[in-house]
């Protein structure tokens, strides 16, 4: 095993990748555009998964599989726990992101914008100009922009 293929040399690479992904994610998430925010969230969740992966130590060994007729792995195997954690995190992240995607789409349909600065439905700019008595949740606020 040469130094080049040594797993240790992968650690700085993963660190840089996680860093770059996080930086890009933060940049995207600072945007007022919800769609960009969503992309930032996706990048950030990938960065986090890489952090967990690197935390489990990088080793050049066999996958953590036990042969059918054995009770323990024959040789040293990779740490299976971070893989399980990442898998769980991916599954959860998948669920969350698909929900957020629908929510952003829904927000676009009903509010007509994906610019967070323009979303003032819940917190109208003029407190006095609330909709008339009735069900305030269902009445579109006339306060917007007027």
């Amino acid at each position, binding site marked *: 095993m040469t130094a080049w293929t040594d797993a240790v040399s992968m650690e700085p690479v993963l660190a840089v990748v996680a860093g770059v992904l996080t930086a890009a994610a933060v940049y995207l998430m600072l945007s007022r555009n919800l769609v960009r925010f969503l992309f930032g969230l996706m990048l950030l969740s990938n960065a986090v998964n890489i952090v967990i992966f690197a935390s489990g130590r990088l080793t050049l060994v066999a996958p953590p599989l036990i042969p*059918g007729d054995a009770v323990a792995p024959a040789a040293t195997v990779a740490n299976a726990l971070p893989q399980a954690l990442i898998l769980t995190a991916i599954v959860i992240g998948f669920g969350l992101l698909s929900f957020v995607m*629908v929510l952003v789409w*829904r927000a676009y*349909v009903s509010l007509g914008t994906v610019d967070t600065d323009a979303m003032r439905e819940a917190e109208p700019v003029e407190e006095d100009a609330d909709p008339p008595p009735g069900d305030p949740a269902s009445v579109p606020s006339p306060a917007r922009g007027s």
Partner: protein
Amino acid sequence: MQSLILRTATRLVVALMLIFSLFLLWRGHNLPGGGFIGSLVAATAFALYSMADGPAAVRRALRIDPRLIAVIGLMTALIAGLWAALAGVPFLTGLWNKIPLGEGAELPLGTPLLFDIGVYLTVLGGVLSLLLALEESEVDDDRLD
């Protein structure tokens, strides 16, 4: 999307993918695979079908509401976990029942497989209801939930 090539190819590919997804589910306990991966393959198959023939065709092919599939899946998983209560061991403990097939061969069937089937159905139902709701939302916004 109206494409004869896509629709013809889809028929074949969807069937293959569904069989492959069941294969993944079956081998999942001891080898790479499992309920989650299997159900995603199945969901992809249905997604392909809905691209070729539209979401209505998928609903017809499924026969039951995808949300109901998810509910059945959740119940299956719960039963798999609670099975351990009957045996007096902690929740989710894997219990195996080996069915002899003759000539020394036996078929181990256990609660982990049942749990996996539950996961398969839950994820399939969940992904499909989301997917179909999104596809249909262009026509009818109220279906989104």
